[in-house]
């Protein structure tokens, strides 16, 4: 079991309110991702759930029990830190066994559980090494191992992949997702990387300045962003947001079109501009287009290898039914 409920939770550091009153329910077994730009309060929120920070007002309930004043160790949560926070003077075995030793389990049980965690995470060969002798990905797995031996009600991940290189990050992303499928335990995951959020989450919580902008499945957020912030944050490359005459044509203050919803056409087309930088990825090409009269730089994603170069004129046709409309307050117009 691992249902986490936040009720009117606020957090202030001195006079600065970093989290205004916030309500959120994380269901048992759900993979929830907190995503937002740096400084949006997502890590603080995670630390409030963990109990590493005291909440200023409000309540936190874990499995229906009030956990507001419960010390971190007694909340039944396990956390994986950004720096992994492995104990450098202990072997991998001792690192993983540490929470069990603190819980005063008997030695046979500790050995059994450590061996099991190690085999789940492919760490069996490294049990007697020190963290300093491991690679980044292995350290990451030790940190996860230290979390899973406790059979926690929920896992908390604080940007666990940000110290890994790109290739390893993709691999660990899959491993964590698979671990979630296998353990079916609640996971709360904090990241600033919307790709991680989109690929891993059952539910994404988009945070901005301590406020929840939208909660939903990855595809809900992609297809129906509630406001311009979510629209601009979710999706890669970013959605093109434009105001002015073009928006007025659609009866909105702001309109947004995703780069993948603009087609490159031979001639004609509603919009045209000059190609600035063209990023050829092979499978796709991203064009950064200037002089459209719509916005400073329009981004367009076209499938395949399109042979337009810097300085060429490009003709574009947006898909009208994929245009998102927002009012003057930035809220979505249904």
């Amino acid at each position, binding site marked *: 079991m691992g249902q986490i409920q936040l009720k009117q939770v606020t957090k202030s550091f001195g006079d600065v309110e970093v989290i205004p009153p916030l309500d959120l329910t994380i269901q048992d077994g759900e993979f929830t991702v907190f995503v937002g730009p740096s400084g949006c309060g997502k890590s603080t929120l995670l630390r409030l759930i963990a109990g590493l920070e005291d909440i200023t007002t409000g309540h936190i309930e874990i499995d229906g029990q009030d956990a507001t004043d419960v*010390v971190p160790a007694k909340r039944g949560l396990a956390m994986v830190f950004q720096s992994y*926070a492995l104990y450098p003077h202990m072997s991998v075995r001792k690192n993983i066994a540490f*929470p069990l030793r603190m819980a005063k389990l008997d030695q046979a049980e500790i050995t059994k559980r450590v061996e099991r965690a190690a085999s789940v995470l492919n760490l069996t060969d490294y049990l007697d090494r020190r963290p300093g002798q491991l690679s980044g990905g292995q350290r990451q797995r030790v940190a996860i191992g*230290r979390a899973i031996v406790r059979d926690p009600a929920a896992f908390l991940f604080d940007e666990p992949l940000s110290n890994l290189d790109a290739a390893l990050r993709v691999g660990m992303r899959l491993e964590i997702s698979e671990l979630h499928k296998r353990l079916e335990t609640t996971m709360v995951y904090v990241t600033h990387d919307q790709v991680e959020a989109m690929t891993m989450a059952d539910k994404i919580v988009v945070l901005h300045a301590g406020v929840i902008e939208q909660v939903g499945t990855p595809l809900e957020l992609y297809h129906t962003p509630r406001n311009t912030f979510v629209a601009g944050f979710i999706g890669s490359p970013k959605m093109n947001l434009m105001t002015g005459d073009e928006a007025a044509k659609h009866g909105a203050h702001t309109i947004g079109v995703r780069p993948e919803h603009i087609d490159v056409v031979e001639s004609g087309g509603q919009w045209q501009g000059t190609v600035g930088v063209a990023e050829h990825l092979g499978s796709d090409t991203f064009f950064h287009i200037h002089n459209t009269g719509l916005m400073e730089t329009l981004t367009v994603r076209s499938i395949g290898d399109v042979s337009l170069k810097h300085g060429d004129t490009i003709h574009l046709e947006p898909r009208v039914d994929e245009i998102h409309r927002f009012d003057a307050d930035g809220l979505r117009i249904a």
Partner: protein
Amino acid sequence: MATKASRSAARFMMAPAVVLLLGWMLVPLIMTLWFSFTKYLPLRGDSIDRGLDWVGFSNYARFISSSSFWPSVQTTLVMVGGVLLITLVLGILLAILLDQPMWGQGVVRILVIAPFFVMPTVSALVWKNMLMDPVNGILAHLWRFFGAEPVAWLQDASLSSIIMIVSWQWLPFATLILLTAIQSLDSEQLEAAEMDGAPVLKRFWHIVLPHLARAITIVILIQTIFLLSIFAEIFVTTGGAFGTRTLTYLIFQRVIDSQNIGLGSAGGVYAIILANIVAIFLMRIVGKNLDA
């Protein structure tokens, strides 16, 4: 330092320092060794100009067979050990205290470091006359305030008193080194341990103390070097009386009071041997902490 040119340039630039250091160490060392094998009593008219009589190992035999030798070695070790223990324990506690966020942290830190800037002679005098004086010292007043008989510190508890004075001087050093070490501890490790269910004392024992191991080693090694040659504090307070005569002080007495340079030099060589024995033990016990 990769190319041949940069390596030789480096050697060239280091040369003056190396030569100076070697000269500084080797000349006194060789002279001490030479004197220790000679009869050198300046008051009896011996001098280097007139040539010194070679007496072999008789100075060594006399120094070690003196009734004050072994007690002085013991006093030295007790003093070094006592000061190390006090400065380490209090230093760790103070470092933890100073690491806590508190009002006036900067001022408090400077105050804690202050004793280190006081010259040994001065601090010993302050302790002797202002704090430990059995008639007018602050401690005597304190004792009397509680109706107790004032302690004649430097007579009745002389060695402990000197250990106290020296500890007071070296505590800032230990605190400072340990404080910087504590500050370099990744706070996420402590938080991880907290999540793992380790209460405060266990976090200290399993996380903080191992992290401090290297700093503790450095404090022990550096302090030992300086503590083996403690002199001013003894000279100013007890003058070596009441069981406070360390090996260093004994050598001083042989050379200055007895005007026997040969005998004192032999003592100096024993002091070198003692320092090396201590160093070997220390490196065996704590030296492995210095490996990365």
